[in-house]
C-alpha cells in the first residue's frame, strides 16, 4: 500500500518533468484536449440553459392549471373531427364555475375564459405591433403565473362592466412608456383608449417561440366589443386546488364540461383538456434528443483530442524504451510502468481539462455579457463532470500504450537504442 503511493507520487513527478521537458509537444497535445473539453462543456452549458429555459417556459403555463380548448396540444391526425367541434364560449366558464360551486369537495377551484389575438398598441408616438391581446375575467388573477411589477388586474366589477382598462406586459410597457410610469396612462388598441392599471414583471419567452412579455390583458367584455370572438381562440383556464391530484381533477373537469356543453352519454368529448404535463411529455424527448446529438458531435472533438493523447503516449513509450528497461532492471513491476504512463496521459488531460474549463467559463461570462438572450448556464456540476471526463479520456487513451510499455521484455527494452 505504502509502495503504491510512492509509485504514484513518483509517477506524477516523472509526468510533470516529462511535460516540462517536452513543452511544445505537450502544449499541442493538450490543445486537442482543450478544444474537446471546451466544445463539450460549452454544449453542456447550452444544454443546461435550454433545460432551464424549458422549465421556465413550462412554469409560465402553470403546473396547477388545466386548459379547456377545442384543439389538443400536439399533433392530431383526424383534424376535421376537431375542426367540427363547437367553439368554446366564454359563458361556459360561468356555467362551469356554477357546477364547481355546487359540487361538494370539488378538486377544481375556479375557471376563467380567455380569448386572445394579435394587435397593435399605440401610445402617443410610440406603436408596437404583434402584441397578443387577451380578454379575460377577474378570476384570471387567481391562476396567473406572472407577478405584477406595478398595479393590479381589473376586478370583477370592472370586468363585468367591460371597462376600458388593461394590464401591459413588461416589454409592451417598456416600449410604449420608456420614460414615465405607464400606470394611469392611456394606450390605443384598435383605436380605442384603454387606461393602464397594471404592468407585469418580466417573464421571458416561451421556448423562444413567443414572448410572454409582449401581451396586454383586458376585460373580456371590452375585448368582445372590439375584437369579437374568433372561432378558435376561446379557451377556459381552470385552476386546480391540489396539483398532486391533477389526474382526478382532470376527470372531474371532463365530467363538468360534458354537462356544460350538454353532451349525451356515449358521445365523444367535443373539447380537449390540455395541461403543462402534456407539453412536458412531448418536449422532453426533443430536449434529450438535442442534448444527445449535441454531446455526441462535440464528443467527437474530444475523441480527436484523445487520439492525440494516445499518439503522444505511444511516442513517449517508444522514446523511453531503454528507460523502461532500466526501471524494470531496478525492480519496477508491470503495474509501476503502467501507472507511470497512465499518469502521464492523465496529467496532460487534466491540464487540458482545467484550461478548457477556464476558457469555457470565460466564454460563458462573455456570452452572458454580450448576448444575454443566449441560454448558457455554467454550473458546478459541469466542473466535476468535465474533470471526470478529462481523467477518463486520459485513462482510456493512455491505456493501450501504457499497457504495451508494462509488458515490454526488460532484455529487449534494455538493448533498445
Amino acid at each position: 500500500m505504502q509502495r503504491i503511493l510512492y509509485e504514484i507520487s513518483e509517477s506524477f513527478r516523472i509526468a510533470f518533468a516529462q511535460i516540462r521537458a517536452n513543452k511544445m509537444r505537450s502544449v499541442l497535445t493538450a490543445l486537442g484536449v482543450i478544444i474537446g473539453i471546451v466544445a463539450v462543456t460549452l454544449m453542456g452549458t447550452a444544454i443546461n440553459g435550454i433545460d432551464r429555459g424549458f422549465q421556465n417556459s413550462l412554469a409560465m403555463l402553470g403546473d396547477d392549471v388545466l386548459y379547456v380548448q377545442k384543439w389538443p396540444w400536439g399533433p392530431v391526425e383526424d383534424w376535421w373531427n376537431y375542426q367540427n367541434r363547437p367553439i368554446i364560449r366564454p359563458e361556459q366558464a360561468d356555467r362551469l364555475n356554477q357546477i364547481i360551486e355546487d359540487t361538494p369537495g370539488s378538486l377544481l377551484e375556479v375557471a376563467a375564459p380567455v380569448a386572445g389575438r394579435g394587435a397593435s398598441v399605440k401610445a402617443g408616438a410610440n406603436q408596437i405591433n404583434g402584441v397578443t391581446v387577451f380578454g379575460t375575467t377577474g378570476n384570471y388573477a387567481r391562476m396567473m403565473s406572472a407577478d405584477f411589477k406595478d398595479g393590479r388586474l381589473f376586478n370583477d366589477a370592472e370586468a363585468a362592466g367591460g371597462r376600458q382598462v388593461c394590464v401591459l406586459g413588461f416589454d409592451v410597457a417598456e416600449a410604449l412608456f420608456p420614460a414615465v410610469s405607464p400606470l394611469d396612462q392611456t394606450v390605443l388598441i384598435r383605436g380605442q383608449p384603454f387606461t393602464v392599471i397594471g404592468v407585469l414583471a418580466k417573464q421571458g419567452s416561451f421556448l423562444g417561440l413567443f414572448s410572454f412579455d409582449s401581451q396586454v390583458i383586458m376585460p373580456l367584455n371590452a375585448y368582445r366589443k372590439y375584437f369579437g370572438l374568433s372561432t378558435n381562440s376561446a379557451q377556459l383556464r381552470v385552476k386546480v386546488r391540489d396539483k398532486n391530484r391533477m389526474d382526478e381533477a382532470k376527470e372531474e373537469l371532463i365530467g363538468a364540461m360534458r354537462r356544460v356543453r350538454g353532451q349525451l352519454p356515449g358521445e365523444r368529448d367535443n373539447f380537449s383538456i390540455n395541461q403543462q404535463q402534456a407539453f412536458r411529455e412531448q418536449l422532453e424527448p426533443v430536449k434529450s434528443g438535442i442534448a444527445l446529438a449535441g454531446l455526441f458531435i462535440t464528443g467527437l472533438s474530444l475523441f480527436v483530442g484523445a487520439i492525440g493523447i494516445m499518439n503522444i503516449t505511444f511516442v513517449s513509450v517508444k522514446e523511453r524504451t531503454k528507460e523502461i528497461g532500466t526501471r524494470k532492471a531496478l525492480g519496477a513491476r508491470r503495474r509501476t510502468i503502467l501507472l507511470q504512463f497512465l499518469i502521464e496521459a492523465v496529467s496532460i488531460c487534466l491540464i487540458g481539462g482545467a484550461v478548457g474549463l477556464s476558457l469555457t467559463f470565460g466564454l460563458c461570462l462573455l456570452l452572458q455579457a454580450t448576448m444575454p438572450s443566449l441560454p448558457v448556464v455554467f454550473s458546478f456540476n459541469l466542473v466535476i463532470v468535465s474533470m471526470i471526463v478529462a481523467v477518463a479520456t486520459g485513462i482510456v487513451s493512455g491505456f493501450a500504450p501504457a499497457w504495451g510499455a508494462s509488458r515490454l521484455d526488460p532484455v529487449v527494452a534494455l538493448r533498445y537504442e
Partner: protein
Amino acid sequence: MTPPPAPAVARTVRPPGPLVIEIEGVTKLYKMGSETIHALLGVALKIHRNEYLAIMGPSGSGKSTLMNMLGCLDTPTAGRYEFNGKHVAAMSDDELAEIRNKEIGFVFQTFNLLPRSTALANVELPLIYAGYAAHERRARAIEALENVGLGNRMHHKPNELSGGQRQRVAIARALVNRPSIILADEPTGNLDSRTGVEIMELFEQLYDQGNTMIVVTHEEDIARHARRIVRLRDGLIESDRPAGD
C-alpha cells in the same frame, strides 16, 4: 594508449560464503523467424557470497544471455535456477522484478541513468520500488553516493557529470538496496582506460567491503581483477578457474 599494468599488490581473497546462485542444465532458445538460436546449451554454475567473478567470452558465446539469466531479466527455456534457494525459472514477471529490486544491483555499460533526474534521485529509484519512505530513501541514497566518492555531486544531473562519475552514480544505485550480488555488464566499456581503472579500483573496494561481484566482460584486463573467471564459448562453459591460473 597502452593499458595500465594490472595491480601488483597482493589482493585479498575472502573465503566464500553461502551459496547465492546455483544453475544447472540451463538452456535458452530464441526463435528468430523460422530459425531457432541456441544461446545456452546446458550451463551449470555455482556462485557463493563473497565471490568476485568474471564471465568472459566472445560475442555470440551466450555471455549476455547468461548475464540476463543471472540478473533475473530473463528465464531459462529449460534447467534449474535457484537464487538464495528460490526457484527463479518458474517466477512471474512481478516476482522477478522483486528479486531484481532486492537482490541484484545492476551496473550497465551505458550507465542507464535517468537523464532528467539528479544523481540523488537516480540512486533513490530502487528504494522507491522497494517501498521506502522519502526520508529513509534520501538517507540511504546519500550514504551510497558518499561510499562511491560522490558526496559533493549529489544534486548534479547526469549531463553535468563525467563518464566516470556517471558510472559511480550507477554503482551507488546498484548498491543502495544492499543486494546479494552486484552484476556489472562491461562496466568500463564506455570509459577511457584511466577512468576504467578507477572504476575497477572501486569494485575492488566494494569487494573488500563484503559485496559479491559478477562482472561480464570481453576484456582480459578487466577480467583479471576478478578472483574467478568463467569463460563461455558457443553456449557452453569452456573453463571455470581462479584468476591468474
